[in-house]
């Protein structure tokens, strides 16, 4: 049962129970919707970007523990950072969750987000972890199409 505990680590469970930055963002400058058609997960991500910096971020929606905690961890990780830094973190996160299971992940590069490395053992769940990140990218590029994990 070790692998289940890899997936549902205490940090993930905590973010699932008490998601950070959850709710509307009244003074948002941009937002995007994300949808995982496979499991019906939906989230709306709102951003306040001032200059090149993300000064506010929040999310709302319904989803599994992995997608909700990933969104929560992401909002914490990018808040206060520049748009370029957030984009760089997107790439690092994406690389982590797509690294083959027998290869080590660069935990330093992603910091706290490393708790989500366990999804690699559950191929069907990688999309749950990446939904928030794809939505972030859509919000940053002000894409009007809903972000999808497909």
């Amino acid at each position: 049962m070790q692998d289940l505990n890899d997936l549902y680590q205490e940090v993930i469970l905590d973010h699932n129970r008490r998601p950070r930055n959850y709710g509307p963002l009244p003074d948002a400058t941009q937002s995007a919707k994300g949808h995982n058609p496979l499991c019906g997960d939906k989230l709306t991500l709102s951003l306040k970007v001032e200059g090149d910096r993300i000064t506010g971020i929040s999310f709302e929606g319904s989803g599994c523990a992995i997608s909700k905690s990933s969104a929560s961890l992401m909002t914490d990780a990018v808040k206060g950072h520049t748009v370029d830094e957030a984009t760089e973190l997107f790439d690092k996160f994406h690389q982590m969750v797509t690294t083959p299971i027998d290869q080590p992940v660069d935990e330093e590069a992603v910091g706290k987000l490393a708790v989500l490395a366990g999804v690699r053992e559950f191929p069907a769940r990688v999309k749950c972890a990446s939904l928030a990140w794809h939505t972030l990218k859509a919000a940053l590029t002000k894409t009007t199409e809903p972000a999808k994990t497909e």
Partner: protein
Amino acid sequence: MTPHVVPAASPVPAPLDVLAVREQFPALHQLVHGKPLAYLDNAATTQKPQVVLDALRHYYERDNANVHRGVHTLSERATASYESARRSVQRFLNARSEREIIFTRNATESINLVARAWGDWQLKPGDEVLITAMEHHSNIVPWQMACARTGAILKVAPIDDRGDVILEEFEKLLTPRTKMLAVVHLSNALGTINPVEDMIAAARRVGATVLIDGSQSVYHMAVDVQALDPDFYVFTGHKVYGPTGIGVLYGRESLLQACPPFLGGGDMISSVTFEKSEWNELPYKFEAGTPNIADAIGLAAAIEFVRGIGFETIGAHESTLLEYATAQLSAVPGLTIIGTARRKASVVSFVMHDLHPHDIGTIVDREGVAIRTGHHCAQPVMDRFGIPATARASLAMYNTTDEIDALVVALDRVRQLLG
């Protein structure tokens, strides 16, 4: 395999020897993550008995040839087996004639065939197609597309909180404008068995043509198309213990006769010139190109297997399973069953307080329990109940009460981990 034949005159169905039945299904006997597999995802697809695997192997090892065109021995054998498979399906549905049995790829293709060939022929602007709120996407999307092509209008009969069609609303929506009633026999997401006898009778009163989607019913209950009397009845082979890639369209002979063809090509013509082609007779008019010969033969093996056991025996066993599963799952703290129709098959959809079905599915899988989680290709049903998804245990003839216990134990594990 004949140990489960029910004597025709038997007033009480012979009890199902579930262990003997399980012996016939090789895939059931394996460990998943070190635990014995409890396969409870039969509404998605059923496992295959040895006789089906043997039929496929026998065909490819011995009889493989194209049908309806060769004079050589193998082609004659392949043709005989393929046409014998059609007669198996005819008997299975109690159709009047084998000309009424068309092989397709699956139920989706069967519905698309009707929506295209019959729909484009018969639907006019302002006509209405009536479906219900519990349809699978396969009985929604082809009609939306047909309506977009023809100017017809799609109407949806609502369902109540139990998951039953609200019959008064249904009857109000059924008017002389209704040209097609397309309705699922047994809901994959809720387990509801629709009163299709009454619905067909009501459709007849307004002169509507009727299609019944039998994808889920064919492995739970006997279907008699002469008694039910729909115009079209569709199902897919892989849910009745047969192979994937083979489906069936039953159509009333006179209607199929009048209906233009669907796909054009080889086998569906009697003569071709560059000026004009003449259509072949039924059922070949609707089977363009080399058909899925092997899987039709595999499906026939599955059907004979099911007939050998008998739906009275299967139904009695599955009722016991449904009753047990409903009682056991209802006792799980925080669990709510979605779909409590008056007539129900052994499908139990549920949600658990604050726990997402996707997490439930992943965790129970590690306990060897295979269930489906998600919207079950019935997103409007999820919207109706205000939920994004459900977890679903769907039970077949080879399932046991022990496997339901395994699910309940696994759900305990979910609550320990995430609760």
